[in-house]
């Protein structure tokens, strides 16, 4: 059985004031919000601009704000957001990014930070559920979707702040290298007032991350690492040589 839902979309068009357009869409409630957007584009309004790619939370390109919360519309069901037949779905672009058009934001600032953090694209795979460690590889969990940057209250007010995605990426880079001087350089990069110490511990990033990255947990671990390093330096203890594999935070359960 289809639902009839009322969709409002923020329209950002170059050199025009932001407006809100309204659409009525018939769709089965277990379909995803991205299906709603694609259906509006295909059947009602070819001027609507949005980004999408994989439709299964892997490419990160469709992230938007739906009914006030950052989501990947490709994996969020209509019924979980709209709640009832005849309900409303309000869509807008991610916050804290320059808007290019409608639901499309400029991802360049995030990718610049991710490049600086140098997070590998592929790393050691986590073991399969209930199985021992093995020598396999997997893509890093972070899909670089920008949701954490949009949800973070500090990013909203401080353009100097490196942000949750970048800081979590630096943590992963530290974890992936066995080179002590490289680890030290990476920690230097974030052990700054606009790095790990700028986080307000709001945990919005970890709550909304669609990919179990837990940026806030990683930022807290980086703070401990930086603090221990200061203590070691004060006491004149040399840097540890071994890699930091094994220091990890508990992933957020979805």
């Amino acid at each position: 059985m289809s639902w009839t839902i009322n969709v409002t979309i923020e329209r950002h068009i170059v050199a025009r004031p932001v407006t809100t357009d309204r659409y009525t869409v018939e769709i089965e409630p277990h379909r995803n919000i991205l299906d709603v957007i694609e259906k509006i584009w295909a059947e009602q309004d070819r001027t609507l601009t949005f980004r999408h790619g994989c439709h299964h939370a892997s490419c990160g390109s469709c992230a938007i704000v739906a009914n006030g919360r950052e989501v990947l519309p490709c994996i969020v069901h209509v019924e979980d957001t709209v709640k009832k037949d005849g309900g409303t779905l309000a869509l807008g672009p991610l916050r804290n990014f320059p808007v290019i058009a409608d639901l499309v934001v400029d991802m360049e600032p995030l990718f610049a930070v991710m490049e600086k953090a140098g997070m590998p694209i592929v790393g050691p795979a986590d073991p399969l559920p209930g199985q021992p460690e093995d020598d396999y590889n997997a893509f890093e969990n972070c899909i670089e979707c920008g949701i954490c940057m949009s949800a973070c209250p500090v990013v909203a007010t401080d353009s100097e702040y490196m942000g949750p995605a970048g800081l979590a990426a630096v943590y992963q880079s530290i974890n992936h290298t066995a080179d002590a001087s490289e680890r030290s350089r990476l920690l230097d990069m974030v052990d700054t007032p606009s790095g790990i110490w700028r986080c307000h511990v709001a945990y919005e990033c970890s709550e909304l991350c669609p990919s179990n990255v837990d940026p806030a947990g990683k930022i807290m671990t980086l703070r401990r690492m930086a603090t221990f390093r200061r203590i070691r330096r004060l006491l004149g203890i040399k840097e540890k040589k071994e890699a930091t594999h094994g220091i990890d935070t508990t992933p957020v359960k979805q």
Partner: protein
Amino acid sequence: MSAERLSVVVIGAGSTGAAVAHDLALRGLAVTVVERGAIASGTTGRNHCLLHSGGRYCVKDQESAVECIEENMILREIMPHSLELNDGFFVAVSDSDMDYMRKFLEGCEACEIPYKQLTADEARQQEPYLSENTLAAVAVPDGVFEPQRMCMAFLATAKKNNAVVKPFTEVVGLHVTGGRVHGVRVWDRISLTEYDIDTDLVVNAAGPWAEEISAMANVDVPVVPTPGVMVSMTGRYAHKVINRLNVSSDGDIVVPQRETSIIGTSSWTVDNPDYIEILEDHVQMMYDRGSEMVPILNKVEPRGIFVVARPLIGSASEDEREIARTFQCFDHAQRDNVEGFVTIAGGKTTTARAMGETTADVVCAKLGVDEPCRTKTTRLLSYRAFYRI
């Protein structure tokens, strides 16, 4: 003639268009890519993410299988550290699968696909979530990619070689004068304005929309939009790609990617690939068939359910499973008396680089450019460079 000042417009920024742009830009041509949506927002994006070893085609479509294994090895070189490389299994869970094994091994030999036979115990030791009914397995060098990021890597490298990439730029007309295509009319979806781009040649790499584009030059291309349903399940239950050791059929593959398992796929044909309804019985078929190989997949939640049309070459009357998965480059001057217009169709993301090479060879021959292909050995920039350049 040197490539200087010769310009090419490539329509489509899926894997084919991205690879064509990269190849032409490396040869020195002035390339402009126009894409009506976001990068990889069509067929490529909604990909199964399988870096083919060729195993899936080595019995019935050996030309495709050979293309796959060759390109698989090249991609490992030109985009290192950007692929999940844990190999793949073809698993037998029925007597009919076991009967197929001999043909499969002969196919691997014929196509020079490296393989290793495993007993059921060996296979289940490596992949403990495989069915208890597993009878045997064959390991092959399958892998997993990120399709959108592969496109961005091709395009970032193309941009470094002076290509211009224009997403949200939809072709609404081709300019044809005296039997020659010499420009495109585009609609800028950001500013909602139209403008023209003059060019020496147009490459149509619009995938299942190729026919829509070619019709603008009154040319027909035999592309059949052939959708398939895929279901991405919550959780990763194998490190290797798990294929059914049998003739290709619905729901016969599980691709692990990051923390998910993607079951695919089905096959039917449509006229309009813009919005395709997801068929509920196909989704159920993915659960049923996928769990014959990895039983836990029937007990976990789906994460994303998606459908997209493959751009197969053939006629709609053919059985879509029988259509070869290889690619074809059409020079419309030879075929339809329309100069300055080339269509590249068919193929798959694994063979995108080869599709780019073949197309660029045709384009350069037509424009009199004498530059060799260098994409086999040119390392691609990271996808993260795409926005910076």
